[in-house]
């Protein structure tokens, strides 16, 4: 468990950078042409970063030891297929998580 000061520092860092990103265009680009590369990055970055976050979430999955990431694989597949089929994010999230919890608590 980290210290309270450290925790508050992390929250402050996240809050300040988020706010800076939200205010930056209003403060800097008001009435001026926005640089093409900024528009381009704002467009493609969210897409790439979501892929990175997926890897980040699954980074600690033990592939070499039993159960070789099988619960993760099954739960990921269930979530993907459900999202493709029903297009309901909340449903996919809740069912995918429930499947994962059952798998690691009761099956593996």
């Amino acid at each position, binding site marked *: 468990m980290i210290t309270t000061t450290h925790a508050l520092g992390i929250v402050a860092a*996240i809050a300040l950078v988020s706010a800076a990103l939200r205010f930056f265009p209003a403060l800097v680009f008001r009435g001026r042409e926005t640089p093409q590369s900024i528009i381009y990055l704002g467009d493609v970055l969210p897409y790439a970063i979501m892929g990175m976050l997926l890897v980040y979430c699954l980074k600690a999955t033990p592939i070499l030891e039993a159960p070789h990431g099988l619960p993760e694989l099954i739960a990921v597949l269930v979530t993907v297929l459900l999202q493709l089929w029903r297009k309901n994010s909340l449903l996919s999230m809740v069912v995918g998580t429930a499947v994962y919890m059952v798998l690691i608590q009761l099956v593996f």
Partner: protein
Amino acid sequence: MSKREYFKYVFIKTIPVFTGYTVLGIGFGILLQKAGFGVGMAALMGITIFSGTMQYVGVDLLAGGASLVTSAIVTLMVNARYLFYGLATVEKYKDAGWRRPYMIFGLVDESYAIIVSDDGPEGEDPNKFWFYVTLFDQIYWIVGDMLGVLIGSALPFSTEGVEFIMTALFITIFVDQWRDNKEHIPAVLGVGVSVVCLLIFGPSNFLIPAMIVIAAALLFLKKPIEKRGKMPLKGGDPS
């Protein structure tokens, strides 16, 4: 329109966000409680950060005792899309007056979707409507966050594995983005570079090199990607 009618109108318009944020917020609160934090921390994060994705990642940063620099860089990359929303509302919010700073601070994907398509009740100032949409959405989010902590500490069964909700959230966004767009280079690049960096640098150090390589590679590929003509991309991020 009386105040009561007005707020009722805003509430009805934001019911989809209300449902979504309650579930997402509860998920976040349960994770935060599991990481050893209380209702106060949930409220603080919901008020000051107000970003679903970054609060989920934030629980991980808190649990792992990440440095402030790492936290700041991760936020910069994860929330880069706010630059885009900021750009899109520079013109729109120009007459919002005293409400403007809060509307800029509180702009999330869900509010944005309502704001671009709806000017509120006839004969009323649209800025007032957009302001209350933003405020209502943040209140739903903060209440959901706090509720999650309380539920997390009271659940009668083991919450082992509940952290998968963060993975599931990102999967749903990723699948939606994949389905809505024809250009998949950024998505493939994001996953590919991250896996390679994970193998080289290990689970606790791969994030920053991965982000640098992703940003550099995307800038390097700007011309070829634009030439393919499958842009612009559409979002699909719940906050």
